[in-house]
């Protein structure tokens, strides 16, 4: 049975706070007078933050050698999936009232929706195969499969870049969000490139000591490199 560490509990609480705030804002009429648009944007923002935080675990471990962080990737990834689904549901259900003709015509003509729905499909696939049962069953393929999260994250940045009023390439308009998330994702992915990862891991020796050598020995090596 899975042991619930205090870190897991804190993670779950922190990850659920944005949902709580969203629900409170809804019931106290604090989602502006255009609550649908606000809720759509906010759930999307939260999903991105969750996804990026889940992608931060590995590089943080690379630098600071905190193996327990690797255990948080799955719950954080699942929260990203949860908020992304909420985001999608707000759009299709609350905004478009599940009017599939309207939704289909929107999806067929808007590139930001196409990349967004592709990213969510990838996250869905990863969420469905996130259980240990699948991990065992798929073996090495599982790891490869779950590297699709990098593609999903890239698509998410593109989704945001195309969803704002501005042009990322000429640096004009409302572009701070795609710009910031693009830079963050670039750094998160760069930290995974083997030569860079090696040089980052040298920082570990600058730290006073390995925080928990026994724990890190027991960790399967594949988790460290993902």
């Amino acid at each position: 049975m899975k042991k619930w560490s205090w870190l897991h509990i804190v993670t779950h609480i922190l990850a659920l706070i944005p949902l709580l705030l969203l629900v409170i804002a809804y019931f106290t009429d604090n989602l502006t007078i255009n609550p649908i648009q606000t809720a759509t944007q906010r759930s999307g923002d939260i999903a991105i933050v969750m996804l990026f935080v889940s992608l931060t675990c590995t590089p943080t471990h690379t630098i600071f050698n905190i193996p327990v962080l690797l255990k948080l990737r799955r719950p954080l990834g699942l929260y990203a999936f949860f908020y992304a689904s909420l985001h999608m549901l707000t759009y299709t259900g609350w905004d478009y009232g599940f009017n599939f003709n309207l939704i289909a015509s929107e999806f067929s003509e808007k590139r930001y929706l196409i990349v967004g729905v592709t990213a969510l499909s990838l996250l869905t696939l990863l969420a469905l195969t996130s259980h240990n049962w699948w991990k065992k069953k798929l073996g090495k393929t599982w790891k490869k499969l779950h590297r699709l999260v990098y593609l999903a994250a890239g698509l998410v940045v593109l989704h945001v870049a195309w969803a704002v009023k501005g042009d990322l390439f000429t640096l004009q308009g409302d572009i701070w969000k795609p710009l910031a998330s693009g830079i963050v994702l670039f750094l998160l992915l760069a930290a995974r490139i083997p030569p860079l990862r090696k040089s980052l891991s040298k920082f570990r020796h600058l730290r006073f000591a390995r925080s928990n050598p026994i724990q890190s020995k027991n960790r399967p090596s594949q988790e460290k490199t993902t």
Partner: protein
Amino acid sequence: MKKPFILKIPVSEITPQHQYLNRRQFFKLAATASVGAFLTACGVNPPIQEEVVDSQEFENKDILDELGDPANTYQEITHYNNFYEFTMDKPGVAVLARDFPTSPWQVEVGGLVHNPRIYDIDDLRVFPQEERVYRLRCVEGWSMVIPWLGFPLSLLLKEVEPTTSAKYVKLTTIMDPDNMPGQKSRFYPWPYVEGLRIDEAMHDLTILVTGLYGQTLEPQNGAPLRLAVPWKYGFKSGKSIVKIELTEEMPKTFWNQIAPNEYGFFANVNPSVAHPRWSQSTERRIGSNTRIPTLMFNGYEEQVGQLYSDLDLQKNY
């Protein structure tokens, strides 16, 4: 040419008088001469007492546009604004704009005209102000119904007499980064410039707005002077205008410069021209959660359709 639509009935006549006066009590009425005159003209003396504005309660289901759609509340109209000079956060505009100085204010009217002139804002309030209940359709897919107070831009243009070479009207928003924090952002080509073809500018539906719900315009809505062109997407209606120029060349407008493939110069509300982000075939009226079909020219086709009879609207979006 068909006679364009004008709302000839002031709000006070549509609304049962007692309700109208109840609403009025929320306002510090002494504020504007125009409102005072307006009420006096209706044979009513403005209430003397100055009660605190409780705009939350200020709403009226009896103010309708010509299609029968009820006006949005004063709270909605003044607390959900796209005014990037202040902030990109729509509810945040009202907060940041609260102390924006709108007096003294001058508007330079010049360019290709015979009588260029600098107008003081009070000179512009001399033009006969009328109430117009217009739909405002934002390019983002939401809309409102707004009882503006203003006068046709054509009255002002006739006074300065455009020369025969004048083809366009360029309207420039004030550049005041000290009071408009959003203008410090380098991601935008400040100041905000919008423009109209001269026949669009001369159209009776095109008004310069000085007021809202019968009272002086608030800074978040573009005080002291803004444009309202109801058949175009909201961004065409520039706010806090300081300069009106007549030009021969098509002006380089703000959003058109940022993303020309998304925001055309004309920006007529057109459900058949898709936008890469927002639905242009449907919209959500603020205050309601259901989508309604967007009307060609925002429902003003009868009045303005003939302006574009020889223009390919799919290309000139």
